[in-house]
């Protein structure tokens, strides 16, 4: 069985039940969105998948591999790359070097890593900024850099944590087109956390809604935006 599977996954931080018996599946090749109000447990779910935090209960599998209990670098080696909601560039390194670090995951050869990085940077419109210090980039560019770096590791599954926040509508559309492209051409499965509904509606084939750590709904995007429970806690009446 391929794809990503969460079964009854829970995580508690002190008094807060951040993730509460959440189960969902992300089929191989799919684009799935994880939405919900702030504090719903979306990023915690990502951290559980990525090995940053260990779940208290439940099981996370990627294909035949158990992910829970593995370390972040092992999760990456399993074929899962993630971006950080609060961007974490290697600030003093150049944009290109940032991506080369990601590419070195698949090759030990610096030359090969650099040409792989170049391709990614060109596709993400960062090539002209390759020599800049990553710390000097604007926030939207840094978000793009997060994506570029993650793609460098040649993942099968890409976890995107609010990479479209702060983008202008046209930029959002460009990013949406880009993700569709890599999904179609490279067969990369995508799980994204996103507040920008414009992007969610355009990208996702399947939407999962979290609230107070619980999964409250899932389904096709057009059905989700009409779901009364989702409207009440997250989207608001006017979204109908």
């Amino acid at each position: 069985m391929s794809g990503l599977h969460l079964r009854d996954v829970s995580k508690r931080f002190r008094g807060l039940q951040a993730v509460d018996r959440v189960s969902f599946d992300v089929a191989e090749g799919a684009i799935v969105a994880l939405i919900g109000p702030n504090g719903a447990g979306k990023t915690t779910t990502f951290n559980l998948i990525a090995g940053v935090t260990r779940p208290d209960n439940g099981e996370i599998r990627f294909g035949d591999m158990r992910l829970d209990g593995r370390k972040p670098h092992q999760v990456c080696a399993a074929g899962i790359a993630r971006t950080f909601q609060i961007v974490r560039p290697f600030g003093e390194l150049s944009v290109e070097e940032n991506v080369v670090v990601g590419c070195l995951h698949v090759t030990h050869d610096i030359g090969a890593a650099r040409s792989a990085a170049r391709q990614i940077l060109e596709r993400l419109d960062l090539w002209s900024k390759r020599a800049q210090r990553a710390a000097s980039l604007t926030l939207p560019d840094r978000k793009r850099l997060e994506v570029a770096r993650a793609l460098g590791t040649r993942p099968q599954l890409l976890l995107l944590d609010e990479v479209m926040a702060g983008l202008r509508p046209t930029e959002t559309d460009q990013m949406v087109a880009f993700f569709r492209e890599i999904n179609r051409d490279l067969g990369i499965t995508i799980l994204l956390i996103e507040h920008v509904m414009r992007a969610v509606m355009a990208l996702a084939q399947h939407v999962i809604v979290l609230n107070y750590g619980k999964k409250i709904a899932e389904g096709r995007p057009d059905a989700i935006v009409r779901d009364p429970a989702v409207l009440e806690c997250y989207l608001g009446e006017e979204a109908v």
Partner: protein
Amino acid sequence: MMTTGVAEVPWRGRALLAVLLAVLVVAPFVVSSYLLSVLILVLYFAYLGQAWNIMMGFAGQLSLGHALYFGLGAYTAAALYTKFGVTPWAGMAAGAIVSAVAGAFIGALGFRFRIGGVYFALLTIAFAEFTRILFDHIDWVGGTAGFFLPVSNRDTNDLWNLRGDPTMFYYVWLAGAGGVLALCRMLLSSRLGYYWLAIREDELAAQALGINTFRYKIAAVMLSAALTACGGVVYAFYNNNLFPEPIFSVARSIDMLLGAVTGGVGTLMGPIVGAFILTPLGEGLTVALEPLQDLFKLDGIKQVFYGLCVVLIVIFQRHGVWPYLARKLGLRQLIGART
């Protein structure tokens, strides 16, 4: 398109380095024996600063206890030579291994239990300190009374046994400082170097990109420790006496990193530039302040001025002197780590 990760050093940079090297190679034929001893100190600090910089400047792990690795190397090689007649070069290999193992142990302890930043630095001080106290009680290598290498045939140079005049040691230090600079440059343009810098910049992000940060941090500590140990060996054979107190002291650990910090942490030229500033500064102050000290009985006035100068340098050049200097020389490309 460039196929390597090494930033091209512009010809002016190469020329400058070549001139510096040429001057240093011919220096012993020209300078007085006092100046030669100062230059030996400069190279000594350039070498050790570079070794320390691998751990802090590249991998971002602060060590304030490098005297430990220095001392372990010094004592290991000195004991092997004095007690068993082993050549210091073999002793150097042994000392490097001992220090690398010690470094791996301290690193593993710190990194496994997530002791980071200044707390990790405290751990490194603690190990250096109790090794100092330990050596006070090892009578086999002299304890507090000190350990002395046999001083013989000083008039002939015996490189194999590191017995010789200051000029020989000068060239040994020069080879060491040059070699470690070349090694660091090579490392930085390798996968290892990229990974170290990534860890220094953001460890969590590095892990997310598949880097086993624990392993690479340990590698940095081991290499830094081994190179520092090699420096300790040459020091031991140059000085011919070892006492636990100055060898393992915190002051020595600080001296080692001061050059790299004032020159520019994380840069390749920083430790060299720093050594060339601080050592002559210290020596110059000693000479300049001698009358003052004699006249007013102001013991330690040199240290006060030295400290003041270091503070001023660090205040005005927060990232070290080298980045500033490189910009002035039009060698902006050489500021970054990968030069």
